[in-house]
């Protein structure tokens, strides 16, 4: 029970931090409004999907270094397929790219299971392979995206019955993010498969002995990671309108947000909400740094310090919160 509270407490704390930062942002820039919030969400989008991709495998006790490369590959694939094609063609491109992510992710999992090479090495290798493939698809940034796709993350979603001034705070990008994550995560979390993913992350041996098909579960976890990464790739193409073969800074960011979000890197613990809130926090910190016009060289120092401080603080309260006499 206390553990349950503690876990949710972490997410709640993060959320409080986000609200605090938001108030701070308002103080720095009184004009910060719904439009700016929309910008924030659009900036969050690729990071959020990268983090979701990382979260699934981390919970399953692994790590996926190929997330950013996978995003690059899916992004260039989408962009080059849509280049010069009709608007309707994009209707086919989107599912195709998602399926591609799923399959390539599953391939990651299969390689890990079959070769028995540590996941960190396998995904490091696939990082290079996917990057290479991205370069073969597009040698330089380019391609295009269907207009309706680009439009689908711009502006707000008019919700009938909601007053306009509240509606303005519901950007389409946020709706898209929530829908995409929930559609996969909520059923997963409730299913036995979801439990199995947590189980293999917590203790592979115990999971195996409990009858969990460990190999299959691991492959599925990586496939889901690939799917989320493909969503991230699409989000990149949607926001920039192009595909870029060089991966952005999403790998380290995803790992950082996963840890900030309360997911143990050993596996088996945490959820998706924490990391997503963590992404919002990190992006908002960046906004504030820009708004404050802080010396750019100092921003790196600040970002690093914040990351370390938050995790240190988390560790600190966990040590304090540990009930006395929990040993041996």
């Amino acid at each position, binding site marked *: 029970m206390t553990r349950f509270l503690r876990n949710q407490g972490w997410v709640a704390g993060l959320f409080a931090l986000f609200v605090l930062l938001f108030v701070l942002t308002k103080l720095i820039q009184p004009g910060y409004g719904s439009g700016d919030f929309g910008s924030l969400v659009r900036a969050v989008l690729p990071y959020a999907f990268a983090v979701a991709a990382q979260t699934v495998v981390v919970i399953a006790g692994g790590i996926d270094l190929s997330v950013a490369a996978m995003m690059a590959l899916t992004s260039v694939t989408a962009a080059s397929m849509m280049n010069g094609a009709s608007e309707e063609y994009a209707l086919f491109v989107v599912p195709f790219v998602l399926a591609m992510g799923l399959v390539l992710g599953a391939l990651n999992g299969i390689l890990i299971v079959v070769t028995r090479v540590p996941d960190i090495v396998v995904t490091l290798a*696939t990082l*290079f*392979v996917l990057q290479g493939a991205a370069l073969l698809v597009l040698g330089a940034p380019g391609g295009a995206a269907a207009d309706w796709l680009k439009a689908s993350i711009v502006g707000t979603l008019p919700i009938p019955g909601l007053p306009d001034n509240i509606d303005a705070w519901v950007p389409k990008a946020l709706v898209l993010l929530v829908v995409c994550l929930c559609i996969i995560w909520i059923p997963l979390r409730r299913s036995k498969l979801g439990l199995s993913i947590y189980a293999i992350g917590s203790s592979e041996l115990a999971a195996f002995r409990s009858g969990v098909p460990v190999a299959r579960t691991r492959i599925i976890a990586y496939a889901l990671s690939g799917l989320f990464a493909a969503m991230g790739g699409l989000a990149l193409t949607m926001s920039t309108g192009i595909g870029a073969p060089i991966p952005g800074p999403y790998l380290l960011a995803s*790992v950082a947000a996963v840890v900030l979000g309360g997911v143990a890197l050993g596996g088996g613990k945490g959820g998706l909400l924490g990391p997503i809130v963590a992404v919002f926090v990190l992006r908002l910190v960046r906004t504030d740094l820009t708004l404050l016009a802080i010396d750019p*060289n100092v921003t790196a120092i600040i970002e690093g310090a914040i990351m370390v401080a938050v995790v240190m603080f988390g560790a600190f309260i966990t040590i304090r919160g540990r009930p006395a006499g929990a040993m041996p």
Partner: protein
Amino acid sequence: MTSSATMPQPVSFGRRVKRFMADRPLVPLIILLVILVVILQILRPGIVNERWLANTVKFAIPLAILAGCQTMTMLTGGIDLSVGTVATMSAFIMATQIVNQDPAVAFLLAMMPAVLIGLINGIGVGVFRVHPLIMTLGTSLIGTGCLQVYQRTVIASGAKIPDFLNWLGTGLTYGFPNALLLFVPLAVLIVFTLRRTGFGRLLYAVGDNERAARLSGVRYWQVITALYVISSLLAGITGLLYIGLIKAPSLSLAEPLVLPSVAAAVIGGTSIFGGRGGYTGTIIGALILTVLTTLLTILQMPEGARRILFGLIVLFVTAAYLRIVEER
């Protein structure tokens, strides 16, 4: 109890070879290395000459030392992503301070950030229990920021590579790179530390089962703090060696070595989860990666294809190595 270990049936030659290699995991790694070199020689006849060997060794040494940092931290279940930044910092500070300072003073100044970052890493990981990945990532961000601020203050004074480092980094004696004079004792020291000192034993024990180590009287924070300081010092020394080799101080000098250093340690058989591995394998791992880079450079292929090949070979090498070493 009684000796029942003897297997009655005669063991086939294949199994004997396998057993032999499993007992000496270095042998298959070396064989893999030789295979790569042979492939190189076939693709470009004549390339494997004295000069090439010297160059390969020269470039493998900095990688191998950084991979030593990873090996030691990985034994405790950690990782040190700040080595790139630390190496860059000491290199840059050395190159800029040598202009106006006594070499000894410049050296001390150059090693200062290494000690500091190592200490912060160690305290963060050992006392506050921040995950090493986040901790070292954070300090490396902070370090990069500091370096940029520092860079601005010294930009007018220019930079110079001390002759000694030049000699150490690029010089040859009887065809052997001078860097070996630094590396061989260092490698022996690391191997000795891991195998034959109390500290080395504690690294394994802490990484394997921290609670068991604690019950045996080991103070975790002491071990971890010492470890990260040592790791940072090694990284600092690598930076000095590397600047002697590259001769161009830049703000991202050693960053590209970070991921390969992790890869070298893992290819060399060190477990990322702690408790298992050693340094000799890592050295071969670093050589393998260096030869592989050369191999791919001289292949006339599109960059994309080259990266794909690199990834596949890394995966294959590790998988083959595991197959050979793994008994059962």
